[in-house]
């Protein structure tokens, strides 16, 4: 079989159009730049003598207009490729780009549904709805949701298994056909094969699942730790504050990369350090939830008892399942009975998770502490104090909800940063497991033959970049919209 072309049948007229759009954009940008430097200004409204308005157009306006239409044309071509993937019957006609677009169909449907619903009801959706007023926020949200849905539908999107090896496909270029595809097997490697003969496209898609299951969860844990420590440090101040701040600064002064190398080496895992660290770090969410409900409902004993027992039951079962591992003879904690040991986390995954949480929580702590120092002087805090509310109630139910804006923005940014950290770990071969399709590890594998075979390293690199870019844009949009009111 022939290898696939990049653009397939539609490419004959979509490619020149796209190229033309690109050229027009570059020309428009350059002429705009030159004219701005030369001192020309964009046209302004002029009020005529008969009280009508005239918009004078200068060459700059035309340059800007051409840039705008070039961008629109380019986007239209991109949509054209997706449509081509949907309407053309066979994979040979579609080509690589449209072929990939066709694989992403569940993602497109979900994206369109989310955007249609959100924009329809955006006035009723609070801050989330306001996001759809800002273009940057929408682009960021779109990018993030694209990868979220890719992770969700990864099983449907991927063409092959992430660790299926076909040795003839080693380092094959994108669009190469399989040597002898069986029935029901996708006949092409859309983005080529890596140095072991695995499908780059499927590994990238499956990698989204790995990255998006670790990064947000790790960030959430880091927030739990940071909030649980930052609230009292900022609210009570004094010695407690000094001690916790010193410890946080200690962790912050550690170069991240050194910390990773110290924590993730096999010897450290053997010594059980990750288990001890997870024992400390994972107790914070339970503490947080217990205090949260206790401070609110301590005046209603039946409700409090119910909520606390639920939290404690679920919390302690998952906590002990997490830290204790019966099947591993080297594990430091093996006391928890097998019958209620719900899950065991492999040592590698645990250490990656723990080190990412550990690196992130001091920064969250500092942010929370700063916000609390600011908010605790407000009138509603004084009012609560006069009412006789306890300090924890004030911290968790008065201060924390009012600090949500900056915290949500930071949460988005921090997921991006965590993704970068995970990639860094993978890049140094310290990742989840050598076979794992997560993007950092894939980049690390691809970089050895980078100048000869660039195709295995490039897709995960671009995927990581677009996800982090989406998160940053989303945070920017959220910040802009939350500052408006």
């Amino acid at each position, binding site marked *: 079989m022939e290898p696939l072309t990049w653009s397939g049948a539609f490419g004959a007229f979509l490619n020149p159009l796209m190229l033309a759009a690109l050229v027009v954009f570059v020309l428009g940008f350059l002429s705009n730049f030159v004219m701005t430097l030369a001192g020309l200004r964009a046209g302004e409204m002029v009020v005529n003598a008969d009280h009508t308005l005239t918009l004078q157009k200068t060459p700059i306006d035309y340059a*800007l207009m051409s840039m705008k239409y070039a961008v629109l044309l380019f986007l239209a071509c991109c949509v054209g490729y997706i449509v081509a993937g949907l309407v053309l019957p066979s994979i040979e006609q579609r080509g690589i780009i449209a072929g990939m677009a066709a694989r992403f169909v569940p993602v497109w449907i979900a994206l369109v549904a989310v955007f249609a619903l959100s924009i329809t009801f955006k006035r009723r959706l609070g801050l989330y709805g306001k996001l759809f007023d800002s273009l*940057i926020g929408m682009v960021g949200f779109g990018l993030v949701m694209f990868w979220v849905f890719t992770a969700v539908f990864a099983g449907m999107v991927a063409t092959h298994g992430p660790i299926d090896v076909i040795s003839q496909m080693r380092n094959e270029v994108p669009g190469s056909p399989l040597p002898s595809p069986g029935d029901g097997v996708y006949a092409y490697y859309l983005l080529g094969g890596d140095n072991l003969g695995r499908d780059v496209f499927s590994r990238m898609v499956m990698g989204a699942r790995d990255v998006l299951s670790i990064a947000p969860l790790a960030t959430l844990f880091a927030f739990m730790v940071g909030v649980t420590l930052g609230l009292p440090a900022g609210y009570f101040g004094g010695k407690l504050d000094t001690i916790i701040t*010193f410890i946080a*600064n*200690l962790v912050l*002064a*550690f*170069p*991240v*990369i*050194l910390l990773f*190398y*110290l*924590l993730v*080496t*096999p*010897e*450290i895992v*053997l*010594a059980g*350090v990750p288990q001890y660290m997870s024992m400390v770090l994972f107790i914070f969410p339970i503490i947080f939830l217990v205090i949260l409900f206790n401070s609110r409902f301590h005046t209603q004993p039946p409700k409090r008892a119910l909520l606390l027992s639920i939290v404690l039951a679920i919390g302690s079962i998952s906590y002990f399942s997490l830290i204790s591992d019966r099947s591993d003879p080297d594990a430091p904690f093996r006391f928890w009975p097998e019958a209620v040991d719900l899950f065991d986390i492999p040592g590698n995954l645990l250490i990656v998770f723990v080190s990412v949480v550990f690196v992130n929580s001091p920064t969250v702590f500092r942010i929370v502490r700063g916000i609390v120092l600011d908010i605790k002087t407000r009138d509603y805090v004084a009012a609560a104090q006069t009412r006789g509310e306890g300090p924890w109630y004030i911290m968790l139910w008065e201060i924390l909800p009012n600090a949500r804006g900056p915290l949500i923005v930071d949460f988005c940014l921090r997921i*991006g940063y965590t993704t*970068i950290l995970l*990639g*860094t770990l993978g*890049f*140094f071969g310290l990742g989840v497991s050598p076979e794992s399709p997560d993007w*950092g590890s894939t*980049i*690390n594998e*691809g*970089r050895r033959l*980078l*100048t*000869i075979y*660039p195709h295995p*390293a*490039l897709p995960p*690199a*671009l995927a*990581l*970049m677009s996800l*982090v*870019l989406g*998160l*940053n*844009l989303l945070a*920017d949009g959220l910040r802009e919209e939350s500052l408006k009111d």
Partner: protein
Amino acid sequence: MALFILRRLGVMILTALCLTFVVFFLTNLFPNLEKLAKTQGNARMTDAEVVSWLDRNGYGGPMIMRYGEWLGVVPGWTREDSRDGEITGRCIDPGTDPADAPRFCGLLQGDMGFSTVSDDEVSNIIGGRLQLTGVLMFWAFAVMVPSALIVGVLAGMREGSRMDRSLSTFAIGSTATPEYVSGVIFIVVLASSTTGISPWLAANGWIEGRTLFLGSARSAMDDGVNFWNFTLPVMTIALYGMGYIARMTRASMAEVMTAQYIRTARLKGVSFPNIVLKHALRNALIAPFTVIMLQFPWLLTGVVIVETLFNYNGFGWTLVQAASNNDIELLLACSIVAVFVVLVTQLISDIGYVFLNPRIRIS
């Protein structure tokens, strides 16, 4: 002011002590030592042999004493062999008379130990490597700081303008591109003989070699730095750090531009370039100064990634090698340097901020 600096110094020394102890603790855990014993002695040692080897070589005592020895505040260990009466010790170099050896030999005496993998004094290795990284850092800073400041000032001087929006988007994009992504993209586009623009340029005869830039900085170590072998590593480091500094500069510039005294200047009829350059810039650059200083710890990570990616045997590369080869003393020395750099830049940024900002200095 003197009191402030003294207090900061005190906290810094305390932090340094804590951090070095943590590093010492993590690198001297029993599995690490066991591996060391097996690589140095015999791979098939039994557990008892490992323990006796560790005892013989001074790894036996309690952790805190060994930390003191390493630091140079506790006398180095000495040990007399029970069979031939030979005296060995931490401070006694092989072949010298034990009587001449100093009592203390640790970090404070300038003795960083011995690298077991490279078979050389750690101080000899670290010096040269740091110099190489210094060159890389210098060029990265020389590219990053001016361009970030220009982008930030241009974006911040007219907040909300089209230039602001496009430059801000660029800054966000660059913070979203970690070194291992931009490095890979740069190599593929600019330094590969099969893809990117190099084959096209070479076919037209516009470049001499086969690629526009070199995808490895190895030749920069011996033949000196030139445009061909150093552009990509420098660009890779500079790009990631740049976005953050640019955003901070933009925020600070935008804040200054709304200040009353700028409005006064405008109403007086001062031209816009003059306002930006003479009135606003000086105040707008105080905040970015702190940010630039605090970029050092981040750059350290970047340096490690870039040196690994571009095969440049500097400090970061040494750190990676030491960590993966279980070269304990070398790794400790690397950690000291890293921690020292971070703490000193924090100190400089604190003191510099007070010096630069007259409002804080007076109060």
